[in-house]
């Protein structure tokens, strides 16, 4: 079911948390709300679920205006960060609760609980209490409870934040599998860029209650709309260099890159160079500096290069490079992957 949020505004008392936000999630799509802590991701999510009343704007599920419907009457399944399982009920009772509320017959509830439990692979745990489950199992129960009503929309608020690294990897693909199999429209809230990139069709990157950019993970990574977006995505992160543009992009102390073709740039600029686009293995214009740090990562090494102007540039070099600390180097930069940001942070 298509979700359409228009001119959404949310205030808590006197503070306006979100103003004039627009978001459309297509039917069957999974979208990530990505952003730092406090930017309003959960607020947006709870406005869609109906837990928070919205202070302005409209919300449509498909063609239906649900702006003023209470949470109980919106067909929305929510998975909370701490799962919010009902501690006094067994797993089966937890999953069956939404159906019990709908006054379905016990036989039908049991059948559907069994069915969904198989789907999330917890069929053997139905008699346990939530306390007796591991984090990953609790997560699966929460997913089953959110999905059993066959809701129009599935909302996930940082569902992986409480899991350890290995389980997170497993549940990442598991949640995506469930979303694909059920074909449900889903919104995932996260502050982890890897989660957002690996699980979702599109990412909405938020900052201070606004959506900074919304596009597919690849697009967002390759053509970030702003300095902020570029800095948020990528691990290891992108390096930024201050430069002055006239005849060339002057980095100071003899380092300079040629002006990009087809772009009229002038004055003070910020260059963004991702670590994988600078290093000994690249052709293209050289930048010289001194190696200040080497961090071995196995397959490749992370190398910090201190430029003569005092700015730092990060590179990824395949291991076996034989480089040493404090060695002077001059490496190539992939010019077609260079990002140039203006003074206001937007990409030129």
């Amino acid at each position: 079911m298509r979700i359409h949020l228009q001119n959404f505004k949310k205030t808590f008392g006197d503070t306006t948390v979100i103003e004039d936000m627009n978001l459309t999630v297509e039917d069957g799509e999974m979208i990530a709300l990505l952003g730092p802590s406090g930017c309003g991701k959960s607020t947006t999510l709870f406005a869609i679920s109906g837990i928070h009343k919205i202070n302005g704007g409209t919300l449509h599920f498909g063609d239906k205006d649900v702006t003023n419907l209470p949470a109980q009457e919106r067909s929305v399944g929510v998975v909370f960060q701490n799962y919010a399982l009902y501690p006094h009920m067994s797993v089966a009772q937890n999953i069956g609760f939404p159906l019990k509320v709908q006054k379905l017959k016990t036989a039908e509830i049991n059948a559907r609980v069994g069915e969904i439990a198989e789907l999330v692979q917890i069929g053997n745990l139905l008699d346990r209490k939530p306390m007796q489950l591991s984090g990953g199992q609790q997560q699966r129960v929460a997913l089953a409870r959110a999905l059993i009503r066959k809701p129009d929309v599935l909302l996930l608020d940082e569902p992986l934040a409480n899991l350890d690294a290995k389980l997170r990897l497993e549940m990442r693909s598991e949640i995506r599998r469930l979303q694909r199999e059920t074909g449900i429209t889903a919104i995932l809230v996260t502050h982890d860029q890897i989660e957002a990139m690996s699980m979702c069709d599109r990412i909405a990157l938020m900052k201070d209650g606004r959506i900074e950019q919304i596009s597919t993970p690849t697009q967002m990574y390759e053509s970030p709309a702003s300095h902020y977006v570029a800095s948020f995505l990528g691990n290891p992160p992108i390096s930024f260099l201050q430069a002055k543009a006239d005849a060339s992009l002057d980095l100071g102390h003899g380092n300079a890159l040629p002006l990009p073709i087809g772009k009229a740039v002038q004055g003070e600029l910020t260059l963004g160079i991702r670590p994988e686009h600078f290093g000994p293995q690249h052709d293209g214009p050289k930048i010289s500096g001194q190696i200040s740090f080497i961090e071995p990562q196995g397959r490749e090494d992370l190398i910090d290069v201190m430029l003569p102007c005092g700015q730092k540039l990060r590179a990824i070099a395949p291991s076996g490079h034989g480089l040493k600390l404090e060695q002077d180097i001059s490496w190539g930069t992939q010019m077609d992957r260079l990002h140039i940001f203006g003074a206001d942070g937007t990409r030129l």
Partner: protein
Amino acid sequence: MRSRSNLFLIAILALISTPLVIMYVFQLIDSVSRPALGGFLPQTWELGNWRFLWETIDSARPSIWRVTFNTFVFAASTALLVCAFSITAAYALSRLNFPARRFFLAGLIMLHAFPTITLIIAIFIVLQFLGLYDSLIGVILVKAALELPFGIWIMKGFYDSVPWEIEMAGVQDGASRFRVWRELILPQVKPGLAALLIFSFLAGWSEFILPLVLAPGADAQVLATYMNAVIADDMRPDYGLFKAIGVFYALPVIAVYLLFQKQLMNIYGGGTKG
């Protein structure tokens, strides 16, 4: 190291509680014996002090069983009233946003610390006006009302420790707020409720001043006022009898403490959060 310090603690506790234990033991021994004149060691053993159990000790007084029944009704009704109001009022204060919520909270804390005995004259007048003076119902209502701030405050602490998300999840699952409260939230605060039930029962059981002032007649007498009457009325007080009744009066309290200490400890566990 660990057990050494434990032993030390136990020794200190034992030292402090010895006088209390001695008092209880002597209360019990004295109730079934008669000491030598001027001494305190038991001389002869007899059950005469317990005669109140099978005969009316004074023609003007109701039987002990009637009084015990009154005490039970008083304590149990108080406990039930306090619990019924506390679980609903505390939920509202903890979770619902209603006008003057802050005012109610502040009032609650103030009432909690208020020396209630100063209200007794006003309460007396109100009860008389309502025609509830000298009736058990009147004292029950007053006692329950005075216990309520404590009960609400304790239950609010328990509600506050239930995660919001459980409530949101319930609402999202389609349940009404009332159903969420009854089926999802109330079970989480059951330990607190059990503790409060026992606690307010005991508070009612040991209440003395309110029945004494507000229900002095024979019909509404409870054990505390009964004991008071036994010792106060007679020209020559019968201390043996008084002690026996005292033991009888304290037994249920001790039994309740022994049976429910785990539940009672909960009040200190969950009720600390403001």
